[in-house]
Every structure is written in C-alpha cells, then in structure tokens.
C-alpha cells in the first residue's frame, strides 16, 4: 500500500506543478489592475506606476512566476496586495469557517441523504419513493441563495432562533456556541447536496439489489433488514463514498454563494473577492491550496475503497 501512496503522491506533485503554471497564466491574462483598485478613483498614473514598481508587479511574468514558486516551496505564498498581510494568514482566516461549514454540511448530507435514499430504494415505486424523490428533485433545483435568504427570514429575522449572518471564531473566542452561526448556512448548503447523495444512494441500492449474491442471501432466508443493511447498503456505499470526497472538496471551494448570503468569512468568498480586486497572490495561493485539497481527497477516497471492499487491490 505504501508504494501505491508514494506513486500517487509523485503523480500529484506533477499535477500540482502543471496546475501552478496554469493558475499563474490565467490569472495574469485577466485584464485589470490591482493597484488601480487599491489606490482608488483619484490616483494619478504616476502614483499607480510607483506602487506597482514597489510591489514588484512590473517585473516580467516569468520572473514573477519563479519568485512565486520559489517562495511557495518554502511555505511562503507571498503577501496580499489588498490586505497587506501574508497570503497564508488570509487563507487561515477563511479555512476555519470553510472547514467547519463543510464538515457540518457533510453531517447533514450523510444524516439525511443516506437513510432517506435507503428508504426510497426499499419502497421503490411506491408513493413514499415518489414523494421522497420528488422532494429531492426540488431541493436539488432550488438555488442556494433563495433557500439561504428564506432560512434567514424565518429562523433569524422572524423566530430569532439563530443569528442571521457572520461567524465569530469558535477557537479564538473559546465559545462552542458560536457554532450556531453555521446552522442555517449549513442547512442551505446541505439541501442540494443531500438531495444528490439521496438519489445516488437510491440508484446504487437498486443496482446492487439486482446482484446474484443478494438473491442468494434472500434465498438463504436472511432477514430482509439484514440483507438491505449488510449486503446491499454496504456494497452500494462504495459509489456513494467516492461522491463524498468530491462533495466535501466542493463544499469548501464552491460555497461562495452561501458564504456571501450569510456573510461568512470563508475561502470561497475570499477567492471571488480577490479576483474582483485582482489580488493575484491571494487568488494564486487559494487556488493552489484548493487544488492540493482535491488531490489529497482523491487519494484518500481511493485508499478508503480498500477498507470498504477488501477485493480492491492497490496496483
């Protein structure tokens, strides 16, 4: 197994290097000028040029790339042009919110998606299945911002059960009750994702239930409940688990709409704001971290197959 992990890590390093070039080129292809954004409407061209030179943004792109990669290899992703703080600090600020939000959302997704998917599969074709699948379609189709705004209107502005927006750090304030800030956003974010996992679980369960060994198990007189949970669900989960990995990565990198609606200081919003401001070091840094995250999660998902299905071998 370790040889496999090593080989995959090597391949990941190559992917990362290629990604770094692509990120760099594309970001610098967008027109726009971070200095003009920073200095504002009234800055004279001389002031803009002077600050650009001081920040090293007037150097040839190739040089800028090698400076960036060189420091990135030493763990230094540069300084944000806009915030004038290290990019690693900016990412760390967003990481707590994004990781916690993704984790809580995944809990909802698993708690709702899998059991409901199992029930729908077991009752295939009945009104229960129709109702649950219909609800899932609806949840997958409604835009997150709409769900988010309604959750705020009802549970924050109306009932006052949860705060409407923002997220003060749990760790810095040492206050676990700050997690209440993430309840509504995680529900909004979970809705479409739970619906997808539900449909995936249902479809996968139905596929597996047609396998010969399921028929054999039933013929042996094993209880239907045991057949469903032990024989069907366990095998059906192989497909679902691989979806988990990417769902989790996507929850971190693509939660920008939810983060915007709930004014959460997450990574998705950081990257979109940075693109609008042309804060090159932050965009590059965040995308590099997200690419790395996808590579790691991909690897972990592949390894987890081995534990879910002993027949899988590392080659």
């Amino acid at each position, binding site marked *: 197994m370790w040889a496999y992990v090593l080989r995959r890590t090597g391949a990941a390093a190559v992917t990362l290097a290629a990604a770094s070039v692509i990120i760099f080129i594309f970001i610098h292809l*967008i*027109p*726009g*000028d*971070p200095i*003009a*954004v*920073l*200095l*504002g*409407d*009234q*800055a*004279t061209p001389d*002031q803009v040029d*002077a600050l650009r030179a*001081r920040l090293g943004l007037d150097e040839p792109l190739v040089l800028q790339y090698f400076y960036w990669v060189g420091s990135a290899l030493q763990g230094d992703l540069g300084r*944000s042009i*806009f*915030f*004038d*703080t290290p990019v690693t*600090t900016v990412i760390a*600020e*967003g990481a707590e919110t994004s990781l916690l939000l993704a*984790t*809580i959302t995944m*809990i909802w997704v*698993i*708690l709702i998606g899998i059991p409901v998917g199992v029930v729908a599969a077991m009752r295939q074709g009945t009104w229960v299945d129709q109702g649950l699948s219909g609800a899932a379609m609806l949840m997958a189709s409604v835009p997150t*911002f709409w769900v988010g*705004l309604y959750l*705020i209107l009802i549970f*924050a*502005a109306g009932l*006052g059960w949860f705060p*409407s*927006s*923002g*997220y*003060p750090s749990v760790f810095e304030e040492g*206050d*676990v*009750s700050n*997690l*209440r800030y993430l*309840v509504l956003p995680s529900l909004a974010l979970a809705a479409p994702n739970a619906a997808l996992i539900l449909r995936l679980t249902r479809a996968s369960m139905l596929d597996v239930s047609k396998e010969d060994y399921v028929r054999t198990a039933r013929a042996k007189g094993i209880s239907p409940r045991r057949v469903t949970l032990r024989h069907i669900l*366990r095998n059906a*989960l192989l497909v679902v688990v691989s979806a988990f990995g990417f769902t989790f990565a996507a929850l971190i990198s693509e939660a920008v709409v939810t983060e*915007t*609606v*709930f*004014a*959460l*200081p997450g990574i998705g*919003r*950081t990257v979109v*704001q940075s693109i*609008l401001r*042309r804060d090159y070091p932050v965009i590059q840094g965040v995308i590099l971290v997200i690419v790395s995250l996808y590579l790691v999660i991909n690897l972990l998902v592949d390894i987890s197959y081995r534990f879910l299905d002993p027949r899988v071998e590392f080659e």
Partner: protein
Amino acid sequence: MRHPIRVALGAATLALTAALAPGQTRAETLNYAIIGEPPSLDIQMGTATLATTIGQHVFETLYAFDSKTEPQPMLVESETISEDGRTIVMQLRQGVPFHNGQEMKAADVAASLVRWGEFGARGASMGFQSAEATGDYEVTLKLKEPNGAWKSFLAFPNGGPTIYPADLVTAAGGEPLKPENYIGTGPYRFVEWRPNRHVELEKFEDYAARTEPSDASAGAKEAVIETLRFIPVPDVGTRVSGIQAGDYDYAEYISGDLFGMLKDDPAMKPYISDAPIFGLMFMNSQEGYLAGNYEMRQAILAALNMTEALQVSVGDEELWDAQGSFFPEGSIWHTEAGIERYSEGDVEKAAQMAKDAGYDGTTLTLLVSTNYQQHFDQANVFKRQLADAGINLELNVTDWATLLKERGEPQSWDLFMTHHGPAPDPVLLTFMNDSYPGWWTSTEKTELAATLNESTDPAVREEAWAKIQQLVYEQIPAVKVGDVFSFDVGAPGLETAWDRAPAFPYFWGATK
C-alpha cells in the same frame, strides 16, 4: 460503519445544542454592516468611501467641516495667512495625544503633510512648496500658488491629509500604512482588522476633545459607544435581515427598490443620505470621435432624458433628484448656470444636432461595469435614447477592475460610466483634474480654473465656478446623470447625531 455514524450523530447533536444555547451579550458594541471589505484605512492614500467612513473615527485632519460644509479648526488652534496668500502659519492645539501615547506636535503634522503632498490621493492638487515645523506647536506651509480652497483641502478626510506620528508616516512613504501602524488622534483607536470578518475600533479613553459644541465633523467629538465593529455583509438582503434579527445596528447601501417596503417597518429606521452621489458619463477629450467635438457632445446630451434613467436605475422618487447643478440646493456652490441643457430628452433636436455636427454613424464605445448596477442600468437607458436619435452606442461591459485599467487607455473608449461622491469644493470634482481619465483640458477651462484655484475671495471663486459649470454644459467633459440619495437603515434603539446620513456616517455622539 455504525461507529462513524454514531460519531456524526453526536457531533450534530452537539452542534444543535450549541446552536440553541444563548449567545454572549455584546453590550456597548455597534455592529455596522458595510457592503464589502474596505481597502487600506490609510485614508491619505485612497479615496474609497468605506475606508474614509471607518478611518475618520481613528484619524483626524487639521480642519473639519461643520454642518454648513465650512471648514472649522480641528487639530489647529488658529492660523495666519500672509498677504500674498502663499504662506500659512498654523498654531496647533497642545496636549493632543496619539493613540500610542505620544503628544501630537508640529513635527508630526509637517511629516504627515509632506507625505500627503508627495503621495496622497489628493495631495498633488494642494500645491505645497513646503511644510515645516517652525516651533513645537507651529507649522508653516508654503504654497507654490495662492490656493482659495486650502482650508477645504486640509479638512476633507477622503484622500485627505490625516495626521499620523512623524516616524510612522515618514517610514511608510508612498506605501499605505500597515494596520499595526494605524495610529491617529481620533475618538476611537484601531483594534484589529480581520479579512472578511470585521474591522474593530474601540473608544480612545485619552481623546482630547475640542470645547466647541459638536457640529457635524467639527467641534467636540464624544465616543459614547465602547466598540465599533464594521462587518462586511455583501448581500443586501442579509444586511436588512440582520437588522431585523438584531445582529446589526446599522446597515448601509440598501437598494432603492426596498425603500417602499422598509420605510414603514417598525423594526428599523431608514436614514436617507444627506449627501447625494451623482452618476457621471465621461467623454474622451484626448482621442477618438468625441475629442474636441463639442457639437457632437451637445447632440448626445440633448438626447438624454435623466428622469427615465433615474427611474429605471434607482426607483423610488424619494431617492433621486433629476437636477443638473453639480452642487445641491443649499450649498454655497449651487448654481443654475448652464443647466437648461440638462435632461432635455429631445431626440429630434438631438438627431438634427448630430447631423449638423457631421455625424457619420460612427459607433461610439461606452465603457461600463456591472459591479455598479446603477451604472449599467443608466448605460442601457442611454443606449436606447441615443438610438432613437440615430446615434450608435456600443456598450463595452466589464468588471470594475478592468474598467479602471481600460479607461486609462485613451484609444480604447469614447465614453465611460462612473459616479461621484459629494465634494466640499469644486476643485475636488474629478473632471477639474486634467489628468483624470477623460483628460478634459481647454484654454477656457485653464483660465477659469486658475481663478477658482488661486483666488481667496469667496465671491470671486463662486463666480468662477458658475462660469465653469456653464462651460461643462458646453464642452461636456462629462454628463451628470442626476442626484441619487442612498439609504441606510438602523436598529430602532440606535440614536445617531444626525437624521440624514452624512456622506461618511460617523458614530461619535451616537448611543444605543
């Protein structure tokens, strides 16, 4: 598989119980929902409204505007001006501490002014020859030319000469100060800036207030609320719900279409802005079809109906005023000169004028950004109105950062959309600056601007400005769209020192 599920269930239960536990009470904190992340709070270096709104609590200027927009002494005690108007000797107040405990002295003021004159966003227009400390509490300013607006320049915080400790400001030079060096003399001191979370200020206990009664930004400033927290909340719906939910005490820039719904809501108090912002459509005076082509520019102006543009882009009638003067009524700078040409909306006349100007059907390019919905809506209305007059306009739609770059390239546009905040003096209007994109220069402008800039007689300056406004409607460096009053909302318990929101809302004197 059972074990992880149990863990997950446990975590979810924990999250839920935690969620239902009562939150900490945050007494004495004002939470202000701002529209986005502010750029550097070193407000000498930039003109972003957000940075000024926050920064004015921390930093002070030598003079400050009262409610009549007249500059009154703030950090200075008195001044004397030489006969020729070029030498100004200012006596500073004594015993004014910076947030780091040092006393503000002449050396700090001189260093701050020198840096602002060289690198400041509006520093170049002041025309400093030198700023020197000529005593512990005496600063001598020498100007290259007499400057009729010098006191307004020293009072306007937006991109203006805020006073910092000498060592910090000299070391920073042309780069914005780093947050750890946000040291001023204001009633609030800087605590922390957390990207995407908040900027936090707290009451400065040793603040040396003036003795005159508080009057807008002038006079005594008393910090009553302990902590001010500025929180970026990009979604307008969330800013409003956050007030309803009690999470925010003040939320800015609520969209005009919500005004009708919110003005009677008992859960919040609307604050219409006291300081109109106006849209400007600049014309390229340096290159392209419109450069020097005043007849064609007048044809374009004649086709535009601003009432339509404002109805579409702003909405509720209480929030806009289709008026062509660059200063609202009540301002000493308000004049009707030239405004008979404003918002004529006469397409037939415009078509005839275009024909007389020899218009050949050339397609004109209007650069516009979608980051500001009003710019985009107004541009679309103008495109339609010009098409009716047979003038072809093509929109080049970009994001704001791209627009800022492209408008600096004279060959790539004929017109661009932007907006302008309230200015205390006409010399601060963007089109008065020869190097601002659009690059409006003409002999008439240069002559009138010289009088406006150099005269120290208010009556002479007012007359010069009236002539310039007349000229603006003849040479049309930029088309004024109309006054737009943004509106903010506050929680019912918040008591501010003002009823209509100032251009940069301030919270000294506020209670909750």
